[in-house]
């Protein structure tokens, strides 16, 4: 009897603390929410511009190389800009976050850079104007060890080559 009572009390305490901590987590996610959707970075902190209104980079979910709607939008802007500036060639750099083994991340970075390259090609940019390089997890832009920092580092960046 006593046992079950104390058990119920502990249970209540645990339940209460869970509710409290749930509130706490909710708060932090809302704070980050402005900058992340799922675990894809949507902020502008690290973004540079190839030209007025043409962001240089797109972001990826963990272990993914799928282009989001926003990424495709950015890449169409890059394609338009590349069409207007036909003398410019670019390098697409692929990057991964620090939470993966080095060799796999090199391959993943290459896969991400090629996802961006392929999209530029479908929008009419000639393949010989675009080269790719993967840096894996070797060149993070944000050196923090937290989900937001990692999301900024999972990226492909289009850089002028000439």
């Amino acid at each position, binding site marked *: 009897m006593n046992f079950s009572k104390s058990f119920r009390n502990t249970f209540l305490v645990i339940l209460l603390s869970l509710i409290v901590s749930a509130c706490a987590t909710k708060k932090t996610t809302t704070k980050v929410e402005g900058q992340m959707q799922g675990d894809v970075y949507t902020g502008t902190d690290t973004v540079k511009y190839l030209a007025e209104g043409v962001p240089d980079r797109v972001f990826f979910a963990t272990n993914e190389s799928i282009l989001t709607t926003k990424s495709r939008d950015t890449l169409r802007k890059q394609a338009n800009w590349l069409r207007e500036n036909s003398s410019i060639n670019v390098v697409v750099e692929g990057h991964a976050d*620090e939470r993966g*083994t*080095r060799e*796999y991340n*090199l*391959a993943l970075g290459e*896969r991400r850079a090629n996802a961006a390259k392929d999209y530029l090609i479908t929008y009419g940019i000639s393949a010989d104007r675009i080269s790719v390089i*993967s840096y894996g997890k070797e060149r993070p832009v944000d050196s923090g060890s937290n989900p937001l920092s990692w999301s900024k580092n999972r990226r492909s960046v289009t850089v002028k080559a000439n």
Partner: protein
Amino acid sequence: MIRIFNLTFLVFLFLVTKANSLIEIDITRGNLDPLPIAVSPLFQNDVSKKNSISELKIENVGSEISSVVENNLKTSGLFNPLSKEAFLQKPDIAHLKPRFEDWALIKAQALITGKVTIENKKLKVEFRLWDILAGREMMALAFTTVPSNWRRVGHIISDKVYERLTGEKGYFDTRIIYVSEEGPKTARVKKLAIMDQDGFNTKYLTLGNELVLTPRFNPTSQMVTYLSYFKNLPRVYLLDIETGTQEVVGDFPGMTFAPRFSPDGKKIIMSFAKDGNSDIYTMDLENRIVERITNHPSIDTSPSYSPDNRFITFNSDRSGYQQIYVMKSDGSNVKRISFGKGLYGTPVWSPRGDLIAFTKLHKGKFYIGVMRTDGSGERLLTENYYQEAPSWSPNGRVLIFYRETKSNDKGEGFSAKLWSIDLTGYNERQVQTETDASDPSWSSLLSN
């Protein structure tokens, strides 16, 4: 087949140790009770001491060598070197004939004694290993070499003692090649570095002008294959350590990475990435013929041969996530072997052939573990915030890997260090390096 072999091997060892001495060390289990051993300073006479100072700028190379031995035996986790202050017998007398009662009194079960002379620019070392309980000599050996080799002599003595008392080859006369790291996380400068297994004699093989990653020794430990971003073209390179000659491996129109030698030293196996797809290739070092081993739209990387060259283990995400696979060395009979929860990477075949070591990521933690080559018997040896890339000691008893610490939101507090752990999961230790370090690769035994 392999299991039967192991069993007979153990029985054989057991009989040998029973027949020859009272001392035995079982290295197949975690050793929580290391063997008490007395390492007497190697005796050196006054003439030799003078020569030692002029040749090496070291007053007593005899005690320096014994310190090397002591440190090696201690870090193996199998031995407990006793404090020299308790020793009752002088080194020279003990080396002739130890008074076993005196050594038994301080609870030593084994004793190492020896003598060093430096004459005519030659270093001569003799040593003996004694069984205190049985009251007799177990081994006596002598070496002659150039004086500057004195640390290696210490490592060779350690290997001989380890082998005599455990029945297996040691791993002390070996080197580690690794990537030295300096500077902030966002602009890390990386160089190839090589050092003795105990952290001494560090040499830098590149200047840090370009990013270098994942160096690995060839079977004779004279060549290294690694990834360099020279001229911003990530390619696999081959480096001759003695001559410093470097060459790019093969002529690939894209990134090559994750290189390793085949155990016969004849080929380099690596990944080649093209159009977003990484597959595994080999290049024959003699005739330069390139062969494609895998052909799959997924990422195939981190290949490692079995010691008999017949199989290859590798990392692939063809199931949707990173898992470990094994195939025949011609690329046929691909089988997935990792089925536990989480992601698996960096498989590397044990030099004994029976196990594959790996990195595992599960619920935000990284593990170094081992499994049998069919994927059964998974054992996780160590858990941490971040660690990966195990490399086997040449006797297959110890793994070296690198571990990174978490940074705060400002990026402070980050470090990368080398660590080692026994196959038993015991005896986890940081390996000293001059700078931050990653991607370690263990050489073969140099004195064999």
